[in-house]
């Protein structure tokens, strides 16, 4: 017999969580404060690391308190939907009151995916944004994805986790053209990287030499193809704002964890290379090394959940990166 879930029942269970918490408070327990700023819908494969995902969501809650709905895709099998409701609480340091967020976990077989929208829609917190974090690399290819995505104000994905990052970027660019807010964690991973590059050109002397740049080279290793595409597109777009139009070469090199940019021109060389959590900035032969560890999923999501509006730099870069694939 196939399993089903009733949204009304889930909402009742959620309400009971707070009644129980209130009773505990009256009986002398610590007080509970309910916090919510959004609905976070996480779509993950059943095989996705449960513990790691749970930890990431828990870490996000203090800054982005949310009703989290984690949907686990159990794959093929009979049409089945099951649910579990619980609260995620933490006690801020030095305070007496717990802060709690609601969490719902739904397991769904591929056959029941078409029912997911009808379950999630009533569970979304009214008047607050719904953010979809799609961790499943296969779901965007499934026909049901479009109606699930239609519920969200913003869709967060990771093109680097896709078996075909280039196709993922192309598809995202097409979605963005329809005005849907997107966040690609491959782009988010570049924020600190880009910030360090930008900081070098806060110096007016360095900035004044940018028009000398005639050649851009982006080198990448391992799974850095998507970030390399983004970097190349962003650099070219940014320099174009100054009326500078260098040539761009993107090449794969040996080594698992390299992402490097070289800007060269007449009497000017700047190189930015990140490898093994270290960023080396070399300007006219003088190098400086800085610690720049790879951001965790928590840090990446924290940044993306903070931007629920148009992101002009990303949107422009995404479109340019897609164009780079078909020069």
């Amino acid at each position: 017999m196939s399993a089903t879930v009733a949204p009304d029942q889930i909402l009742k269970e959620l309400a009971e969580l707070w009644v129980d918490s209130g009773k505990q408070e009256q009986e002398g327990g610590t007080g509970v404060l309910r916090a919510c700023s959004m609905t976070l819908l996480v779509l993950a494969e059943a095989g996705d690391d449960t513990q790691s995902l749970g930890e990431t969501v828990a870490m996000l809650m203090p800054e982005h308190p949310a009703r989290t709905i984690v949907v686990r895709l159990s794959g093929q099998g009979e049409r089945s939907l099951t649910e579990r409701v619980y609260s995620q609480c933490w006690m801020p340091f030095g305070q007496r009151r717990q802060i709690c967020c609601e969490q719902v976990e739904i397991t769904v077989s591929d056959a029941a995916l078409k029912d997911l929208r009808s379950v999630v829609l009533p569970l979304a917190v009214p008047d607050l944004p719904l953010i979809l974090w799609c961790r499943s690399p296969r779901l965007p290819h499934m026909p049901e994805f479009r109606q699930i995505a239609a519920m969200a104000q913003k869709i967060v994905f990771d093109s680097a986790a896709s078996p075909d990052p280039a196709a993922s970027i192309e598809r995202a660019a097409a979605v963005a053209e329809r005005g849907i807010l997107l966040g690609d964690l491959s782009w988010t991973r570049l924020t600190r990287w880009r910030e360090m590059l930008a900081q070098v050109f806060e110096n007016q002397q360095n900035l004044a030499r940018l028009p000398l740049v005639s050649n851009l080279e982006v080198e990448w290793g391992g799974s850095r193809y998507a970030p390399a595409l983004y970097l190349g597109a962003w650099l070219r777009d940014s320099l174009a704002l100054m009326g500078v139009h260098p040539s761009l070469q993107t090449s794969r090199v040996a080594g698992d964890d390299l992402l490097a940019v070289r800007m060269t021109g007449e009497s000017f060389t700047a190189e930015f290379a990140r490898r093994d959590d270290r960023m080396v900035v070399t300007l006219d032969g003088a190098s400086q090394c800085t610690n720049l560890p790879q951001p965790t999923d928590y840090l990446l999501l924290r940044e993306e959940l903070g931007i629920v509006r148009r992101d002009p730099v990303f949107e422009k870069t995404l479109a340019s990166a897609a164009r780079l694939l078909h020069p």
Partner: protein
Amino acid sequence: MPLENPFQDPLRFERRVPECAAVIFGANGDLTKRKLLPALYRLAYDRRLSAGFAVVGISRTPMSDQAFREKMLEAVKEFSEDTTFDADVWNAFAKGLFYVAGDIGDPALYQSLAARLAEIEASCHTGGNVLFYLSTQPSQYARAAQGLGAAGLGKGAGWRRLVVEKPFGHDLASARELSDRLHESFDESEVYRIDHYLGKETVQNILAFRFGNGIFEPLWNRRYVNHVQITGAESIGVEGRGAYYQEAGALDDMIQNHLLQVMATIAMEPSASFRAASVRDERSKLLRSIRPMTADEVRQNSVPGQYGPASIGGNDVPGFRQEAGVDPQSQTNTYAAVTLFVDNWRWAGVPFYVRTGKRLAKRVTEIAIQFNPAPLHIFDQDGAGSAPNLLIVRIQPEEGISLKFLSKRPGSGMTLRPVSMDFNYGSSFGERSPSAYETLLLDAIVGDATLYTRQDMVEASWSVVEPIQNAWRETKTDFPNYPAGTWGPVAAEEMLARRGHVWRKP
């Protein structure tokens, strides 16, 4: 015209921080060790400073750059709160620490400083930008500014800014004189008077709360607000600073600057934009609208206090006059409560009760806005049924906002009880809040003076406080008039009772 950096992404990047050198006068002092260097280190840790950022410490003690670095390392390790020490970050940051020894009154110091700044400009590419921070005795402020001006350091290839710690004078005349002396070398736009209260995240949140939301502002006036209570209470005594405190007192130390600035933030008119000049204009206008008191009004509307000995939780606590370095007959106020009125259309007739004190029942800083009661009591009950609506903005220790209102008690019958709806700033946003000094130092480096105090604001504050100061000086009060560990003198309760009000016990 400077070129625009095409790589900036304001939506995702932290604020742009220009390269600069910070020159700290009083580099061997407590403030530098406890607050400034830990704040700068934290900014470096968070990659908020530019790669070429440099610090030049100045004090009289001869010391090498290396010895200064070691001393600051100890300070950062001891006084950095909720910051992990990272040796790599420190080593990179410490490369930019330099030291120049000399006397503030000696012109040779400024020649050495100029030479050192020129070297730093060449090696660190600071672009000639210099932030001077006066962390010295207040009596040295004018001499330091004058020395910088005479050596030509008040102007340069880049920007020059002068940060001054409170107190900004000890009365209106001395505040004006100090400003005049500073202006001999620096324009007013280059003078950053720091009030660390304004750097606190929750004080800034008052602006977000008032002007980012549409629902509160219509209630924010004399039609709906009954009165406002501003409390800055400390549970500790003078903690070895008796000699200093004896000269200042609670009125000058807290109300003249911190609490009047808080009051200005809570009561100011909406500014046309969030630009520094616009926000500061509104703050200044509010301060100038506070009605100065006559000597007779001071007697009715203010209460000085001084704590006496008591036993708190089984520990014997000395009175102020028994503290080390304090005159046993001292007339210094360790508590001050005042009733202020704002003469403008919004607030006419609404009392603003402001109080501060040492050795009060608990450490708390908060603003409580009490609204008028419902015009008709249709629920037949007394007590809880008539409890006023209160909006409480807590600044420390548990930053947040609470709204108190009446709700029906479950069950049959129509019994009301007050309930509190809480927004806890620290836990609703679990992210670490920057310290006030981190915020304000970064603001000064990027040239954002919104949270700094302007000369006209300082003068307006002194105009409010000086009549109280004068009246209190002329009257000998029978001190001590409150035991340590309580909420202050009985006379302060009576001051509110005259208008039918009661101090909150936060």
